[in-house]
Structures are given as C-alpha cells and as structure tokens.
C-alpha cells in the first residue's frame, strides 16, 4: 500500500452533542411525562388546591439558587435532546440542503433558550 493514499481520519465533534442529547433524553424520559401532567393538565383543569402552584410559591422557588438550577435544567436540557433529534430527523427526511445551517439553527435554538432562561433566572435572583 502506498503511504500517500493512506486515508485521513477526521474526528467528529458529535460526542459533545450526543452527550447533551443523552443527558436531555434521560431527563426527558424520567421527568417530562409527569411535568406535562402537572403543568399542562392537572393545574389548568384546577385539580390542585388554590394555594398550590401559584405566583408566590413558584417565584420563591425560582429565586432560590437550587430552585433556579432545577428550573434551568428542566426547561433547557430537554431542548438539547430534542433539537439533536430534529437535526438528524431532517437528514432522515432527505432534507439535504444547507446541513450546516440546519445544524446552526437547531443547536443555536437550544443554546439561545438556555441563555434566555438563565438570564431571566439570574435577573430574578438579583432583583
């Protein structure tokens, strides 16, 4: 074999995104169903008492350090999972155009929401 023809192997950066995908996917698998049940169904149809899940309670939780951390993880981490799937799903559907841009938009959205929520939480804690 000729050395000049030796194949160049290029390492993928996918482990970074796959790691976030896996963490988000695990969190989603364990938490999202019960979260949707609470915030999307039980609370709106009024199955909880009046004193529960109200502004004071949530605000107090969100302005504690641990509460803010929990909210950030619960809101933002699933997006690193879902946008990873959407990015690969576009490939599955044969959307070949602008893969680079698809990547920027998908992971960029997850990043933007993460920063947005983080900023809001920090503002609330500082206020």
């Amino acid at each position, binding site marked *: 074999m000729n050395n000049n023809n030796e194949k160049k192997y290029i390492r993928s950066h996918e482990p970074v995104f796959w790691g976030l995908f896996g963490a988000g996917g695990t969190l*989603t698998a364990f938490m999202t169903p019960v979260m949707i049940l609470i915030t999307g169904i039980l609370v709106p149809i009024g199955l909880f008492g009046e004193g529960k899940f109200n502004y004071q309670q949530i605000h107090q939780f969100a302005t504690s350090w641990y509460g803010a951390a929990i909210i950030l993880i619960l809101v933002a981490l699933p997006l690193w999972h879902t946008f990873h799937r959407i990015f690969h799903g576009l490939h599955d559907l044969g959307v070949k155009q602008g893969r680079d841009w698809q990547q920027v938009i998908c992971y960029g959205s997850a990043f933007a929401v993460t920063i947005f929520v983080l900023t809001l939480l920090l503002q609330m804690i500082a206020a």
Partner: protein
Amino acid sequence: MSKRKPYQREVSSKWWLAQAFYSKYMLREGSSIFITLYSLILGWGVFRLSQGEAAFNAWMESLQHPSAIIFHFIALLFAIYHSFTWFSLAPKAMDIWLKGKPLEDKLIVSGHYIAFIIVSVFCLVVIL
C-alpha cells in the same frame, strides 16, 4: 466487453412509511417536536414569571384554554412514548457485568420503570 451495469435503487424520502418498524422509529424521533414545544411553553412561563404576578397569572390562564389542554394531552402521549422507547433501548447502551455475566436486559428495563414511577409519584406528592 463487460455488460455489467449495476442498478442503483433510489431511496424515497418516504422510506419510513414503508415498514412499521421505521414508522415507529419516526414516531419516536417525532416526539421531539412536541417536547420542544412544551419546553418553549415552560421557557415562556419563566419569562412571564420574571414580569411579575399579573403576567404569570395570565400565562397560567392561557394554559386553561381547551386547545392548550389538548396540546398538552398529545404531548403527554408522545412523552410517554419517548420514555417507553428510551427505557426499552437502555440495555443496549449499557455494558454492566456482574460476576462475569452481563446484567440481564429485563433487570435494566424494569429498574428504569421503577425509577420512573418513584420520580413521578415524588413530583406529584411534592407539588400537591
């Protein structure tokens, strides 16, 4: 002279409809769309929370709209499907050996379900 002329079949972009197994895979991947929307709703809730009590209550009220409840119901079904597929595939991504034998798939899967139930009940009790 060679008469070779290998024929390359084209892949339809609807390949995932041709086979139930593929359709279920796409359903699994599609769960991400609903979970994305749900996360964005929560993110918006944090934004409204930061704007004060009136804004937060308006957000809470918007969740009572029938269309919101229908959306959350569909999202819940997709989220459960995601959990189901995630737990079923978990053994394949784990390489746990005990006493020279691989840990049984059934144990790993049921362990996930037990943890899932504990987490869900814990959340409901804490919030209730």
